[in-house]
């Protein structure tokens, strides 16, 4: 892909995911009243992690970095995901 077009494409993907959140948002609600939903939470966190990985890879150009940095950033995405989902579900269990 052309280096000039590529940032634009990535930006479009990221923006589309962001707008997708709005749909996700309203799907969970009961006529304006917010309802708890583990599905929405998991999807929201998952999508955020996809965006984070895209930002790492494309915007921060880890794509062209040594493999070590690629691995570390991927590990970080997994780590963040595990911590977020873990704390959410532990909180649910502790309720």
């Amino acid at each position, binding site marked *: 892909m052309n280096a000039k077009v590529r940032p634009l494409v990535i930006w479009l993907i990221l923006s589309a995911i962001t707008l997708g959140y709005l749909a996700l*948002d309203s799907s969970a609600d009961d006529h304006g009243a917010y309802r708890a939903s583990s599905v929405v939470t998991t999807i929201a966190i998952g999508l*955020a992690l996809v965006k984070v990985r895209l930002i790492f890879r494309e915007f921060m150009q880890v794509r062209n970095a040594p493999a070590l940095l690629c691995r570390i950033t991927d590990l970080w995405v997994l780590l963040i995901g595990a911590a977020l989902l873990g704390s959410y579900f532990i909180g649910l269990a502790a309720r």
Partner: protein
Amino acid sequence: MTEIAEAGPPPGADRQPAEAAGKPARHIPGQPDMWVLVLFEALVFTAYFAVYLYHRSAYSGLFLRSQASLSPWLGTLDTLLLLTSSMFMLRCVQAARAGAFRSAMANAHLTGAMGAAFLASKITEWFLLVHGGHTFTSNQFFMYYFFLTGIHLLHLLIGFIILGVIIYQLRGPRRRSLELVETCATYWHTVDLLWVLIFSLLYVVR
């Protein structure tokens, strides 16, 4: 963390020869040292997020009711503004790398403009919330909301200083350290990256 710092080229090392030789050498953009900050801050924020999510699921009723006072539209706008700023930042780095300093400068200014728009939007949101009676001490949700958005905004303000460094580097023909520009860009993207997480955790999570 030390390994990353030592794995890359030493700070200030000139890697022009490798590129000139036509080898697309894999390299870390900017100082590898900046990645220590990025990864460390990402972990610190993850700790904040984990504490927030745990409390959130333990008291979901209060959090859901309070969350309804946030405007998902404003949050989405904020996210789009920062994503756009990050795109301009990437283009700025690409232009600087290609030696197109005029274009790099324009993109740096666009980055700053998007960041400023985010700042304005955030302050507006805070203003509206405080007017609606929601403050830092109102309840658990707003405590986390103002803390997370506040500490993120502080990172953004630091980002403006860093953007100033980029513009200063690009302006003087004798400066133009590509390494510094790339280092600063990495920081700017981190601000974006953290916001992406904060947005989904404060506005979307149920």
